[in-house]
């Protein structure tokens, strides 16, 4: 009997949940519960309720820390909420395809959750790189990825960044390299910078997430951009203002002047864009206000702050974690080390099939910068080709959806009967080496 499969990409930042075979998940939602400041309300917000409520000063609790499930009880509450509210098939008549970080630390709480608390019929646990590989291979049947059945998946997500070589749908775990940097650290770093320099936003995790997604970008020439960021007035192409929500008129924060925020693009377009120069003429009053002194300060009474060099220094950390004080190599070197730990015959193919996925790769110019850093490190006779996904956040989920609709999916699962017979240790041996 063929049953429905629920595909659940249980990320540290967001849960992507839906039915196998679909193109898009039913819901993308934060994997967290949030508590409003005590004075306002005592109701605990779960997952998707966070998105619809006022983001100010919510304090978050996440079941996953550094990519690994730490609080199964919290995770159960969140899943229970999702299964109750979403139009999904009931767990006891469906199978579950669940993503799990590479290298399990302890998987038993996961099996208990799936089989004892939710009564799923069967479970398949997959790591994310092989799903991304599967999706890319099917999307482009004549590409390098599907012809060689081999790719290097660079997953730069919320909790950490992995470079994982995949060969014939199996992740080569001896070649996996991890960089302990992801969206969470970047958001916190931005929070730290802004709080110290202008307004205290240490409690505004969700708002700063939004700031990071809208305003941060990857610089292609760090020293030059630092020089530009130092300039006063309208020569400073990076300065832009973000307005915090006030809870009355605006419940969401926003970028004060979109054109101002996009001005840095002129550096990369080659010639100055005509529309942007026009914009500069329209609002001279804004620039006139800026003296060297209060350029950085913004206006604390108006609840807004300016960003300049923070916009590119924050994503810069993915390429140079050492600048943050971490004793780890940057992403480019991470890729090289990952490739070097594989068989030499795979090297040229791996360099030619680098797939970028994960939410943190959404920063503008991420791929260009990576290629620029990677090229000098790779032998001359190998091609470097970096593929970006059209929707990097969903890459893993779509791969899972494909796998779930394949005919022999059921045979790969661990069933509830098996779990009851053998316990979690035997079941986890099926999925983890």
């Amino acid at each position, binding site marked *: 009997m063929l049953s429905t499969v629920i595909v659940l990409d249980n990320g540290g930042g967001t849960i992507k949940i839906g039915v196998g075979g679909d193109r898009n998940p039913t819901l993308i939602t934060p994997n967290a519960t949030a508590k409003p400041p005590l004075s306002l309300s005592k109701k*605990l917000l779960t997952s998707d309720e966070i998105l619809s409520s006022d983001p100010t000063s919510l304090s978050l609790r996440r079941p996953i820390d550094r990519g690994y499930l730490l609080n199964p009880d919290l995770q159960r509450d969140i899943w*229970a909420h999702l299964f109750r509210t979403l139009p999904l098939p009931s767990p006891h008549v469906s199978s579950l395809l669940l993503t799990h970080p590479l290298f399990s630390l302890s998987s038993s709480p996961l099996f208990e959750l799936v089989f004892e608390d939710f009564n799923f019929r069967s479970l398949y646990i997959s790591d994310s790189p092989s799903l991304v590989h599967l999706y890319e291979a099917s999307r482009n049947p004549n590409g390098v990825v599907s012809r060689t059945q081999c790719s290097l998946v660079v997953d730069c997500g919320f909790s950490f960044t992995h470079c994982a070589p995949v060969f014939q749908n199996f992740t080569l775990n001896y070649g996996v390299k991890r960089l302990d940097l992801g969206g969470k650290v970047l958001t916190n770093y931005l929070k730290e910078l802004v709080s110290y320099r202008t307004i205290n936003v240490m409690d505004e995790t969700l708002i700063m997430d939004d700031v990071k997604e809208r305003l941060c970008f990857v610089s292609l020439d760090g020293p030059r951009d630092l020089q530009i960021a130092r300039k006063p007035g309208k020569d400073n192409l990076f300065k832009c203002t973000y307005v915090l929500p006030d809870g009355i008129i605006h419940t969401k924060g926003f970028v004060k002047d979109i054109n101002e925020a996009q001005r840095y693009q002129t550096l990369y377009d080659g010639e100055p864009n005509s529309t942007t120069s026009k914009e500069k003429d329209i609002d001279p009053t804004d620039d006139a206000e800026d003296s060297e002194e209060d350029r950085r300060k913004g206006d604390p009474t108006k609840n807004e702050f300016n960003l300049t060099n923070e916009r590119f220094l924050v994503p810069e950390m993915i390429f140079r974690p050492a600048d943050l004080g971490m004793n780890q190599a940057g992403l480019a*070197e991470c890729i090289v080390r990952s490739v070097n730990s594989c068989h030499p015959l795979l090297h040229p193919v791996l360099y030619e099939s680098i797939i970028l996925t994960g939410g943190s790769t959404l920063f503008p110019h991420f791929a260009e910068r990576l290629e620029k850093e990677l090229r000098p490190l790779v032998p001359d006779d190998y091609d470097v080709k970096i593929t970006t996904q059209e929707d990097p956040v969903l890459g893993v989920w779509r791969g899972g959806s494909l796998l779930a609709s394949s005919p022999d999916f059921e045979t790969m699962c661990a069933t509830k009967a098996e779990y009851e017979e053998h316990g979690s240790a035997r079941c986890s041996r099926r999925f983890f080496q």
Partner: protein
Amino acid sequence: MEDDASVAFRRTSTRSRKVATKMVAALASSDNRTQAALARLEALENDNGGVETVEINDDDEASLDDDEEAYIQKKQSLSMKRKTRQGKARENARKTPRTFLELVHEANLEAFPPHVPNYLRAAVGPPSVTSRRHFCTVCGFTANYTCVRCGVRFCCIRCQKIHNDTRCLKFVA
């Protein structure tokens, strides 16, 4: 990690060892500045603002929806019917607040034979070609000077003043 080999094959007790994060940092190095840097990196992994302690079971004041509560209750009573050893172990696990460091410690990764890849060995090592660039903690530009007390960087005398007035020695205990 680099303990002697005998540690690797010894059976460790299942009791979770609780070590405060500051203690871990202090044990790892006696140097104040390294300690400060570690504390800062640790702070960057926090879910919420500031340097916080992990709070567990503070949901008593906050309540879920009534029907949701019922759903979970039902689920719990279902699973609690079976008095298995696993169930008991889970009850125990529920009582102890767990941090990521404890989780890694419990997985006992050092005991793996050296050719088996695991979480610790998957970490990319230190950088080989590039050295650390320093940015002014006050304004973000290239910093040439170091605070003599806490080792934080700044670029000019104005930034030094701000640094001294505000967060000199912030992460040093």
